[in-house]
């Protein structure tokens, strides 16, 4: 216990804190990039999955299998697979790229289900009205279905991304200089594990907690029907 107390002034130096801040930035950047790209690709996946007709059947099977399979493989296994696969095809890829690709693969599997649920929450009658007016599939999606599905899609998608900030701790295993890796490094330098990992946990908490609060606030806000929201805006103005 005294050892820890004695280490405190030595540990909380500007240098160490700058390192932690930098690593926290990397953690956030990794999560954000991976989740954003993954979210975009998940839309493509859902769109392909909903293709009508017999010729699209193999496509639908592939999309469904993808979602089902990757939700059942541990993230750390995905990281290793991506790492060694990328290294055999493009040996000069950076570890950051490899981490982002891994996050992406995972984010697609999880957000695809969220997006599908959101799109399915829009009544079929809305798409029927669009079809009867000669809207194409893509136009119906973009102008009618998606704008109505956002309030259902966004909150869980944000919640996923926020909770994935924590899961990215696993990429420390392949040597990306993110928060957890930095923690292990400091621990190896002889700093107390309680001190180091307590601080690191605090760093994650400071990123995750406010963002999840923001997500919850957004969820409440989006749950208000559109008419009411604009009415309130008009009243305020």
């Amino acid at each position, binding site marked *: 216990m005294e050892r820890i107390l004695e280490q405190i002034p030595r540990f909380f130096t500007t240098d160490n804190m700058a390192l932690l801040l930098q690593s926290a930035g990397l953690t956030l950047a990794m999560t954000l990039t991976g989740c954003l790209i993954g979210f975009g690709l998940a839309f493509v996946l859902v769109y392909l999955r909903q293709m009508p007709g017999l010729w699209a059947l193999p496509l639908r099977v592939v999309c469904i299998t993808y979602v089902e399979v990757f939700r059942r493989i541990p993230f750390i296994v995905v990281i290793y697979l991506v790492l060694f696969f990328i290294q055999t095809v493009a040996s000069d890829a950076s570890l950051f790229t490899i981490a982002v690709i891994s996050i992406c693969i995972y984010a697609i599997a999880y957000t695809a289900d969220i997006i599908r649920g959101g799109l399915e929450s829009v009544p079929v*009658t*809305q798409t*029927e*009205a*669009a*079809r*009867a*007016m*000669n*809207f194409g599939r893509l*136009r119906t999606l973009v*102008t*009618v279905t998606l*704008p*109505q599905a956002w309030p259902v899609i966004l909150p869980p998608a944000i919640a996923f991304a926020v909770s994935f900030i924590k899961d990215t701790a696993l990429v420390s295993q392949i040597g990306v200089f993110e928060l957890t890796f930095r923690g292990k490094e400091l621990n190896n330098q002889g700093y107390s594990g309680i001190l180091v990992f307590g601080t690191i946990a605090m760093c994650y908490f400071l990123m995750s907690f406010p963002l999840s609060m923001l997500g919850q606030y957004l969820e409440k806000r989006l749950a208000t*029907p*559109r*008419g*009411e929201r*604009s*009415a309130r805006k008009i009243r305020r103005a």
Partner: protein
Amino acid sequence: MPHLAVNDLRAKYGALEVLKGVSFSMEKGQVVALVGPSGSGKSTVLRTLVGLTPVSGGSVTIHGDEIRYSNAASVRRARDQMAIVFQQYNLFQNMRIIDNVTVAPTKIKKRPKAEARADAERLLAMVGLADKLNAFPDQLSGGQQQRVAIARALALHPEILLLDEVTSALDPELVNEVLDTIRRLATEGMTMILVSHEMAFVREVADKVIFMDSGAVVEEGLPEQLFDAPKTDRAREFFGKILRH
């Protein structure tokens, strides 16, 4: 040559045959009413005409031009000529009233924005909603929403307007405002097919009434003929029950 000719039209939901060969025809400017008990396939006729329910047999011709429902381009042409108004209005909840009316003319029919907007304002004024252009659908009453839906369909300048039980979902006191709109369209010579349970209204505006039961046409004729002197037992039974109330 009739304006619209439907010949032996068939449709299935899975194994259930909901239309068992429906035939009728109509001239330009006519108002045809489809009546009959629930589940008789009236609404399905309208849905098949615009390609929302798959057709399993028979033919539909507009101006002698046959619509092939297996062909996407042909279905698009059919939807160009016919516009449908639904029982539940189905306005796009994410768009303001004015956008609901202008979205298809500008995005699908590629009309100039200003022209489509002027047209929409004219139509919304006609249905009595000139002051609601910027409202969202969930801020309007059912009757108002249904009038917007009619304006939205008219903005497509259809040859034929299909009205699918447009007053069934409305509170009784809101029915008349919608019926007034349709009455006005009828006097202006709009070609319409309407599915309705409002028998007094049907008798007033329809040029021809088609009585359907279990997916087939049982009897058709002028409103007076059908309502007052039905030839078939089934029609007599149905109108007897309804008109007594």
